[in-house]
């Protein structure tokens, strides 16, 4: 899923400074799961902004709404009436959600309240780690389902760098496991260590479509 985190409060306050009537729009999918932009976070941020304005002796009117997925026009369109009532929208969705809102409601300024960080998974409660770099040319069949492009600090494709620490930790960040040690152990379990002896040429980054566009073929 897409992992995001809330922007610093000062940045948010500066963005919305000229406006007194706002909609805080949350998203019920990825950013809800990573505690950044769901219904609960919308409520907390709205309350914080009201308190901040009140401390400055100013007033602010905030509407709160969360849709299932802000990155789908049909779902984001549910906010049409509320967007009509406000001067600006503060979106607590990922970059895709913010842009969907901006495209749907062109006449209103849409501000991002989150920084979209990466595609990842939860490692433990409250900790998410990057798992996929969306490179467009998946390599996981050769590495036992562990991506060295994002999980190796140096993004190496042909084995560890030589700086691996004792206990299989990364040279750059001793808190992290060396991705290639993990790959070796995984392939060993599967009896596929022969893959470690193969040489892979540099990755074809032309597979990264920018801007990405995929047309699904219906079965």
């Amino acid at each position, binding site marked *: 899923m897409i992992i995001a985190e809330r922007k610093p409060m000062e940045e948010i306050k500066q963005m919305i400074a000229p406006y007194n009537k706002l909609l805080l729009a949350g998203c019920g999918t990825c950013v809800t799961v990573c505690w950044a932009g769901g219904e609960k976070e919308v409520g*907390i941020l709205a*309350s*914080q902004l009201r308190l*901040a304005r009140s401390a400055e002796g100013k007033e602010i009117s905030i509407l709160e709404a969360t849709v299932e997925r802000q990155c789908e026009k049909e779902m984001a369109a549910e906010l049409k009436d509320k967007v009509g009532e406000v001067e600006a929208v503060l979106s607590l969705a990922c970059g895709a959600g913010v842009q969907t809102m901006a495209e749907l409601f062109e006449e209103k300024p849409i501000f991002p309240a989150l920084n979209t960080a990466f595609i990842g998974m939860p490692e433990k409660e409250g900790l998410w780690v990057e798992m996929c770099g969306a490179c467009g040319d998946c390599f996981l069949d050769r590495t036992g389902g562990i991506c060295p492009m994002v999980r190796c600090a140096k993004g190496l494709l042909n084995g560890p760098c030589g700086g691996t620490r004792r206990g299989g930790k990364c040279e750059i960040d001793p808190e992290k496991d060396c991705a290639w040690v993990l790959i070796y152990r995984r392939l060993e379990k599967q009896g596929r260590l022969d893959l470690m002896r193969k040489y892979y040429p540099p990755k074809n980054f032309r597979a990264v479509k920018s801007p990405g566009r995929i047309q699904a073929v219906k079965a």
Partner: protein
Amino acid sequence: MRGEIVAFCCERSAYPAADLAGKGKLCYPDNLRVIRIPCAGRVDAIHILKAFEKGAAAVLVLGCEDGACHHITGNIRARERVRYCDMLLKEVGLDGGRVGMFNVAPNETHKFVRIVNEMNEKIKESGETK
């Protein structure tokens, strides 16, 4: 609610302590507003923030002593949430220390009164009382 201290009191510990304090004719500030809750773990960040939005000068979350929570970890969760709320309040420029989590056993009436009085003194110093 302007200038009040809102105390979320667990019905198994701090609420009986508050009750006993009354029965024992112990004095505590009249700007205290006690809210009975089933467990300190029921208190969420939004409840604390809403109390401040409505004009509360301070918020107390009072739960069972460590290891005595009827819901096992409610008091531990409450402590984490209060710490989180303190950070949220500092972010918007509200002085820290106006929200606190304390453990109170059902018979600790004097402790309950002391906690409330100390918080009242703190908000008086900052000029937040009504």
